[in-house]
Structures are given as structure tokens and as C-alpha cells.
């Protein structure tokens, strides 16, 4: 049974459709890359999957023990976070916030898990450091550790390597790959087609023409696009 199935899903804002009828499914352990040009609606699709905004039509089914609010999310950085006074520890443990309901404080078990996730990301030496003093790559690891607190099954990553230099980008990809190998389903929005082809086992291309399938088929789809003038417009 699939963890996540989108059936003729039409995401959009204010009653206006941005994408028409997206169909795809994700099974446990998959590595799905969502690619497409700027403004094609990748982030809107992701927000719809996360339940941050309602879909215009179509449906999203969660299965295989996955609940909508049990998806770990790595958002793009916001302006607010740039000068936020908070330690790495405080941020990572806040990944549990949604699960606690009205319970006011985190349990000891949650704190330990948070610490383990910090170690898993290789940033345990930064635990007490202030978030705003870290480098871009370190900040992404912090947010990834927080996302791990929120989920055991699925991660959604919104351009995790945006603004990172090539070396740090490569490190980031290998961390994500190792998480995927440990059994966590990964859905990643990216501009980096070569990384998508290298790591993903499924690719969803968004634009005027939709594509969903294996990386191998995606190469053919791409060459089809370039035969039509190299551009999908």
C-alpha cells in the first residue's frame, strides 16, 4: 500500500488552479524528486500535500500508517529566522511541538530523541550554539534534525540545497541519501536535475506537461521536450 497518493489533484490559490490534475503515488522507502521551472507550482503542490492550503479539487490519500501531520518538513528559510535568538537544541526539540497537543512541555524521551537526531546530523558540537551564528549548511542540518523529530516515515524537503556551496550541497545530498537508506521516504523539491537523476527512484516533473515515472523514463521525456524546441512553452 502506498504512503501517499495524489489523485487528479489541482493545487492553487484563492480558487485559481495552478496545476491541473496531478497524479502520483509514493511508497515506503521511495525517493521522489519534484522538478520544474520557477513558478511552475512546486511549492504550492508541497504546501497542499502538507495541508497548509486546501486543494481546489482532487484528493490526497495517506496510507501505510502515515498521517498528514506526521510528515517531517524542511521549509525554505524565512527572514524571521536569520536573526532569531535560539539554540540548536531549542529548535530541534520544537519538532515535537505538533505531536504534544495541549501538553505544555516536552518529555524526557523527546529530549533524548532530539539529541540523537542532532548527533545523526553530525552537529552535536553545535548543540548549545545560537542558530543565527551558524553557516547555511549547518542551519539546514539543524532544520533537518528538527524535521526528523516530527516524523519517523516521511520527509518533505523544499529545495534543501538552495544557497549552499557545491561541497556543502554534496554533503547535504549524502545525508539525505543516508536517511533514505535507513527507511525514511523522501520527497524533495529541487532545481538540480542531475541530483534528481542520480538519487531519486521516482521523478515528478511539473509544468505545462506533467511527467511522473522513473529517472530512466524521465531522460526520454526530457529529450522529447528538447526536440520540441528545448522548452516546454
Amino acid at each position, binding site marked *: 500500500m502506498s504512503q501517499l497518493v495524489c489523485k487528479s489533484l489541482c493545487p492553487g490559490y484563492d480558487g485559481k488552479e495552478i496545476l491541473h490534475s496531478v497524479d502520483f503515488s509514493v511508497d515506503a522507502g521511495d525517493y521522489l524528486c519534484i522538478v520544474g521551472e520557477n513558478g511552475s507550482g512546486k511549492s504550492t503542490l508541497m*504546501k497542499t500535500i*502538507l*495541508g*497548509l492550503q486546501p486543494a481546489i479539487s482532487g484528493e490526497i490519500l495517506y496510507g501505510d500508517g502515515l498521517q*498528514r*501531520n*506526521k*510528515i*517531517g*518538513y524542511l*521549509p525554505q528559510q*524565512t*527572514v*524571521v*529566522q536569520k*536573526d*532569531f*535568538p*535560539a*539554540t540548536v537544541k*531549542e*529548535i530541534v526539540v*520544537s*519538532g515535537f*511541538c*505538533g*505531536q*504534544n497537543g495541549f501538553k*505544555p*512541555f*516536552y518529555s524526557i524521551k523527546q529530549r533524548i530523541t532530539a539529541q540523537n537526531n542532532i548527533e545523526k546530523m553530525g552537529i552535536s558540537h553545535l548543540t*548549545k*550554539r*545560537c542558530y543565527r*551564528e551558524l553557516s547555511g549548511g549547518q542551519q539546514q542540518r539543524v532544520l533537518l534534525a*528538527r*524535521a526528523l523529530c*516530527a516524523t519517523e516515515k516521511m520527509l*518533505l524537503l523544499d529545495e534543501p540545497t538552495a544557497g549552499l556551496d557545491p561541497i556543502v550541497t554534496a554533503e547535504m545530498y549524502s545525508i539525505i541519501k543516508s536517511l533514505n537508506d535507513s527507511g525514511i521516504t523522501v520527497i524533495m523539491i529541487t532545481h538540480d536535475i542531475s541530483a534528481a537523476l542520480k538519487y531519486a527512484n521516482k521523478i515528478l516533473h511539473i509544468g505545462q506537461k506533467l511527467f511522473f515515472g522513473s529517472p530512466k523514463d524521465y531522460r526520454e521525456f526530457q529529450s522529447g521536450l528538447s526536440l520540441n524546441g528545448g522548452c516546454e512553452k
Partner: protein
Amino acid sequence: MSIFSTIAQYFSYPYVVNAMVVGVLISLCSSLLGVTLVLKRFSFIGDGLSHVAFGAMAVAAVTGLTDNMYIVLPVTVICAVLLLSGGQDSVIKGDAAVAMISVGALAIGYLIMNVFSRNLRSSNLSADVCSTLFGSTSILTLSNTEVWLCVILSVVVVAAFIFFYNKIFSVTFDESFAKATGTKTGLYNLLIAIIIAVIIVLAMNLVGSLLISALVIFPALSSMRVFKSFKSVTICSAALSVGCSALGLLISILLGTPVGSTIVAVDIVVFALFSLLGLILRGVKK
């Protein structure tokens, strides 16, 4: 007579004790949420909402309500909710929305006061407006009921803040992550908005409309110069705020200066000191 015996003498008057209690409580409450507001880019909400409260007071004065709390509190709460509960999705973003409501309410309030009080022949309009905006000596003329109201509301605010501390952190740091992982961000934004409105209505008695922003932002900004974790920043700004207000009140009682402006002046001095301290600490690290 030494300064201490003068102070001791002043504290034998119950109204001075009342003023001190209310001053300390209000500054404690406003500083707690100050950190969140500064980080959410809502530094000016104190100013904006206090203008709303001023507008509502004008309406209350004109309609002849003796206890204007009944109009001022609900109107301010509604405006705070409108401003804050929209969160990241609001149509008009943070600063513009605050500016709009603030200027609008100020203008309408003054207009109403001016037009209608001509009929009422209320004597000294500009002095009334001035004391509403800059705070008057009303903190020295608090009734026992007002003091108790303030104590109860402060206890509620502090308790709510401690109880929801982790949620407030989560919603402030990253609203979309919090929402995606199942935190009821709408609810907490609403809660924050209501608490802020209540604090501002309370604080108008102390420092007046125009100086409320200072109570909200100065302690938060000062402690952000030096401290690095959210918890230490919050605790430090609460301590700073209480200390500055107490000191400011003492000075204003001793020297006969206006209460509100004196407190803000103390806040500014502390901010300067903390900025310097922050620079030194960073320099030492390097």
C-alpha cells in the same frame, strides 16, 4: 535626609506602593511577549494598538461612558486579532497593516473628540489628548479595584505564557513547519493577539499610548544583544523590564519627572549598555 529614607517615606503612602506593583506587573507582561513581537516583525504593534485604544477611549468619552474599559478592551482585542491572527497569509503584511490601523484610529479618535466635545464644551481638550497619549499621573491615582484587576490579569498572562511557551516558540520560529506538523497555529496566533491587546490596555494606564512600544521592544532588543537562547532572552528581558520600570518609577517620584518618559529613558540607557556589552562579548570571543 538620605535618599533611602526619602524612598522609605514615599513607600509609606499606599498609592506609591500601588503604582509600584502595577508598574512592575505591566512591564513584566509586556516584556514576555516583546521577544515574540520583535521577532515576528511586529515591533510597532504596541504603538498601533495603543492608538486603537485611544480611538476607543475617545468614543467612550463622547458617549459619556464612565468606565471606558468596557469599550476599550473589546475594540483593542478585535483589532489585535485582525492584525495578528492572519499570520503569514494576511493580505496586507505586518508593518503596513499596523501603520494603517494605527494612523486611522488616531485620526478618527481625535476627530471624534474634537467634533463632539465642542458641543460638550469640555474644557481642556489638548491636555486630555496629551495625557491619554503620553500617560498621566493616573498610575498614582489607581483605585484598589484597578490594582487587583491588574494583578489578576497579570497572573493569567504569565501563567498562559509559561503554559504555552513551547508553542509560542514554535509558532514564532517557523509558522509553516508548526502548522504542517500539526500545531494549531491559528489558535496560538489568536491567543498571542488577545494577550497583547489585554497588556496594552493595561499599560495605557502606566505609560500612555505612545510609550507602550518602548515597554514592548526595549527589553527584548536589549537582551537580544547579549543572550543567545530563546529562553535566556525571554528571562533576561522580563528581568530587565521589571528593573527598568521600578527604577524609572523611583526616579520619577523622587525628581517629579513624568512617569512614562522616565521609564523609557531608563530603558534606552540600559539598551545602550547592553549593546556595548554585546560588542565586548563578541570581541572577546574573536
